[in-house]
């Protein structure tokens, strides 16, 4: 497009008015904003002595946890959909045949590199059995990089730690049984075949 194109509308900056040229009204305007923040309620908290308020734990994306089923077993079926969805490639799963008769596949090892994770929540969205969830735990520290690679036991312990404060999200979202549409729900098929 050339500068001579008739489609271009050329605008001129408005000349400064008297108030703007005097400088004082704008000065007062700015100071008013400062003063308003001085007296308004504070949003900053003195972390870690004081905990920040989490708006909606269902939406907050903090440390991961691996949910347990009704019998205390890991709910994950090792389908790798979280690892597939993960844009940071921080989930590493080793699948195996499950030791339980009513389940086919389970994660022998399940590791999340929390340092590599970008807490996008895609794993939670991808999970077909609501096994992986992001809690509202936000202060994540460790003394070494190895310590920040969470294994299955640690992720399950996060569930034990947070299950009372934050029940499984699918339960609160569907308002009922979390297992209603879990894949290996029954164990026996529901049809009438022998």
């Amino acid at each position, binding site marked *: 497009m050339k500068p001579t194109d008739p489609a271009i509308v050329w605008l001129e900056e408005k000349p400064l008015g008297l108030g703007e040229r005097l400088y004082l009204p704008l000065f007062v305007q700015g100071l008013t904003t400062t003063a308003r923040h001085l007296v308004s309620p504070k949003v900053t908290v003195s972390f870690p002595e004081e905990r920040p308020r989490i708006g909606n734990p269902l939406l907050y994306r903090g440390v991961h946890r691996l949910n347990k089923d009704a019998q205390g077993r890991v709910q994950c079926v090792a389908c790798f959909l979280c690892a597939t969805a993960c844009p940071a490639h921080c989930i590493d799963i080793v*699948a195996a045949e499950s030791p339980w008769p009513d389940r086919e596949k389970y994660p022998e090892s399940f590791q999340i590199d929390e340092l590599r994770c970008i807490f996008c929540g895609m794993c939670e969205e991808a999970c077909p059995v609501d096994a992986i969830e992001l809690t509202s735990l936000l202060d994540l520290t460790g003394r070494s990089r190895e310590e920040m690679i969470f294994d299955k036991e640690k992720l399950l312990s996060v569930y034990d730690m947070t299950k009372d404060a934050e029940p499984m999200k699918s339960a609160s979202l569907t308002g009922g049984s979390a297992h209603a549409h879990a894949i290996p729900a029954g164990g*026996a*098929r529901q*049809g009438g075949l022998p």
Partner: protein
Amino acid sequence: MPQVIVDGTEIEIGAHERLNCIEAARRAGKEIPHYCWHPGLSVVASCRMCLVETGQRDAATGKITMVPKLVPGCQTPVKDGTVIVTESQLVKESRARVEEALLIDHPIDCPICDKAGECLLQDYHFEHGQPQRRADLQPFHSRRRDVGPTVTLFVDRCIMCTRCVRFTREVSGTGELMVTSRGAKEEIDSFPGFPLDNKLAGNVVDLCPVGALGDRDFLYQQRVWFLKHEPNVCGGCATGCSIVTEHNQDTVYRLKPRENPHVNKWWMCDEGRYGWHHLHDPARLLAAGRRDDRGPDASWDTVDWPAVVTRLRADLAAAGGLAVAVSPMLTVEEAWMLCAVARSIDPAAFLAVGHVPRSGTDETFPGGFTIRAEKCPNRNGVEAVLALFDPAVPTWEDLLAHLRAGRARSAWVTAAYPGAWIDAEAAGAFAGLDCLVVQDMFPSALTEATSAPVTWRLPAVGFAERSGTWVNAGHRAQCFEQAIRPPAGVWPEGRLWWNMLGRSGLYDPPAVRHQIAGAAASFAALGGDVPATGIDLRILQLATTESSSPA
């Protein structure tokens, strides 16, 4: 030439070609979905997924008469004037109904199903199914039973295409599988007391269009969408099946047959299919080692690869009287470079074919598939290469006799066999040499028991880590690229010899191949681009013999 009209497009087929609607439509770029039909098996037309509208164009008037009902495309042969309609509303509705019926009885446990990602039921439902389900379907747990030592059956995932049953009856000829019960209660099972354990059993897993048949070796090891595919050639026997090596992060997860009408059609044997585990064996040799004392506690000094290039040549040149075993596991390019290196060190070097492992006899199955007794992929290629240097082409036994007669001062043995191959007696022939060089994947009697003043132990690479050309028992040369990288720190043989020849840059198998093709009439067929299905090395020789022979 007969003309077939596919969705309004006229295509020509060969005058004597016997095609069905699926194959004819594929020529026109239209894919007719199908489960039960497979080009290598008989037609049963039971899945009803390939139903299409057909008709006939009158040759004289050009008037088209349609068949009032849908017909199965797999069972309907095409001829001149056949009209196929694959996209009409009627056909689309029929496909959606078939998909709906199949899913009523399906567990829909895709997240834990190994087939997910390469499942025809998934693909066809996505493409031809309907978005809403009319039946109230809940995912359930599929029953599972092992039908053989390597194959497991997820009973409820099956769509009863019976490809596996027909395979065991028509190709492997063993007939272990059958259909039990009738109607909606049909199930695949093995006959009581006859588990599926024939030598081609693994093929039923590839044939299964859904996740019903699972390979226990691969079960739950990796999701298929993580796998990378490299066209490759099986090194298990002299058949040299075309395969696809499926790997991720330099780890092989499974091998699958690649369609090649000249070699293996659609199949491969279980020995080859599961014959990749040695690649990841922790016992593999990973470093170049040199030993120069005779003591019982002699230890290997690790030598850097660039130093191997010069020191190996110096050691062999100092010893003189070189005898070389050119392994039939090597590619044509590698064998040629090895011979060239050996002759550059000792112009009178004795070049022989390495040990040719054999087990049993050739086994041919009713479907035409052959498992060879010769358990190496390239004896023909290596012999053809050796013939360029020594028309006598000595064998491994000749080499041992040559050594026992004391006519060699140094020996260079290439092996790269997947397992133990040499016994103490054969290894004894190598005693008393001044210098012994062994290139193998694993420590053997040769490297551990035999001692020479100077012994080299160099690592070799496996079939998926190699690139080059193999010539199978039928003289078909197939070129392939390496699928995975060798373990860290291992130079493939070709790279070492490329450097020992003093050539610059990276090892380039096609460059060597073209050089051989230009230099030798027996390899002239490899001069141009070699198709994925390989090329018969004798094709040009036959032509030249015929044209040059006097009338």
